[in-house]
């Protein structure tokens, strides 16, 4: 049996496949459980709650709100960066809706040309749902080059003076440049990234921040739809599973039980 499995599957990835299947089943299980009536509460995520506060501030000051989903090397299909930018674009819907409700104009700065149609459609629909027309020049592609993108956004800060900045996605060194630039113009800053090297900078320089998994859970938190909540619960169960595997592996290593490690490396 094992010989057949090893013939069909690529060596070194068999356990990964088992884990992926368990992940998918767990997420489906909890989606169905919530549809059947299981009650789930999520802890509060202040950064997402603060989006309405940010757009309210913009309305009071008569200034626009700025949003950017960050930088990717080589576009949205970059395996490490693209998903975080896409998660940021999901949050754009909330920001645009909140801005449209309060009659605030939005500026979206983009580093990825393929994100332009997504952002334009999101902003257009958000404003249309409030019976308004999306602002002209709302969605601005700056550049695919990292520092040209940084320069473009910083110069927009000085020209347009947004009262709030929402930075949600993948960032490298521009995280601090945007956050400090935002601080310089007196804007409220909400940051969010799953990039391990930049979370500390956001934590230090943003008024509100969300990090790591919160970026991907944002839509579920905002909408609280059963499908979305179910996947969050499923993910939490999987994290407990990972913790259990980690502890077991540590114990196995200490007691020289190498079969477990071999299984994980299968």
């Amino acid at each position, binding site marked *: 049996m094992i010989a057949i499995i090893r013939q069909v599957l690529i060596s070194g990835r068999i356990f990964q496949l088992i884990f992926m299947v368990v992940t998918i089943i767990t997420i489906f299980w909890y*989606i169905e459980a919530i549809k059947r009536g299981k009650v789930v509460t999520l802890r509060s995520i202040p950064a997402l709650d603060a989006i309405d506060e940010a757009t309210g501030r913009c309305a009071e000051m008569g200034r626009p709100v700025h949003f950017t989903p960050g930088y990717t090397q080589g576009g949205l299909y970059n395996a490490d960066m693209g998903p975080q930018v896409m998660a940021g674009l999901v949050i754009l819907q909330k920001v645009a809706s909140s801005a449209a409700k309060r009659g605030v104009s939005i500026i979206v700065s983009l580093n990825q040309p393929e994100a332009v149609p997504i952002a334009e459609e999101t902003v257009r629909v958000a404003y249309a749902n409030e019976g308004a027309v999306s602002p002209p020049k709302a969605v601005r592609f700056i550049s695919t080059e990292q*520092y040209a993108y940084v320069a473009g956004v910083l110069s927009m800060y000085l020209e347009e003076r947004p009262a709030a900045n929402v930075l949600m996605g993948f960032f490298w060194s521009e995280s601090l440049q945007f956050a400090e630039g935002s601080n310089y113009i007196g804007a409220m800053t909400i940051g969010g990234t799953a990039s391990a090297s930049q979370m500390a900078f956001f934590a230090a320089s943003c008024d509100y921040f969300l990090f790591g998994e919160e970026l991907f859970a944002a839509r579920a938190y905002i909408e609280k739809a059963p499908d979305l909540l179910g996947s969050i619960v499923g993910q939490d169960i999987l994290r407990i599973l990972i913790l259990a595997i980690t502890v077991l592996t540590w114990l196995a290593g200490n007691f020289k039980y190498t079969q477990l490690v071999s299984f994980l490396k299968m």
Partner: protein
Amino acid sequence: MSNILRRELPMTLAAAIVLILFTDYYFKNDILRTTANTLVNWAVVASATAAGVGVLNVLIRTTRNIQKRESYWYLDIWMLIMMVVVAVGGVIGAYGTSILYTWVMQNIYLAIDATIFSMVVFDITAAFYRTFRVRSIDAAILVISAFFVMIYNVPLMGGLFPDSIAIGSWVVNIASVGPTRALTAVTAIGLIGFAIRILLMKDKSIFGGVD
């Protein structure tokens, strides 16, 4: 355009492509491998084509700025000129050696790129001065850890007083490694959940607009 063309069709297409790439990653099959590689190449081409969308967005915005004489409209003219110059130089370079493109990249682009990155040092010091204050117990732990890590990062301390960097070394090499790995692992789970929600059409927002 109906919802089927705008949402359902792209999502079904995306789901099918992901299924192929997913199975290719785990299964040994030459047909799958070839198909997966072809799809990835198509993604590269599509991404390059999307660059045209970006250029169009820039052109429409800047020409509007120039026509209406918005603030710094003359810089928009300069940007358009440079865009054409570098584009022409790059196209020539694709078929041979472009001295213009190489000169612009090596003498202008590299220098400006490095300059803007260098500005980060000012942002870091400003953020550092503003935020590293003992406002609470958590902040105190942060400041103390930062103190020892900064000692560790001073090359002089390592050279003159090798023992002084022990605590900072422990913080960087041992204390922070575990949480970083944990963060990476849980973020990966979140990413998988996000991908599954989108591909199973539980979350349609990535295709623009509300449900």
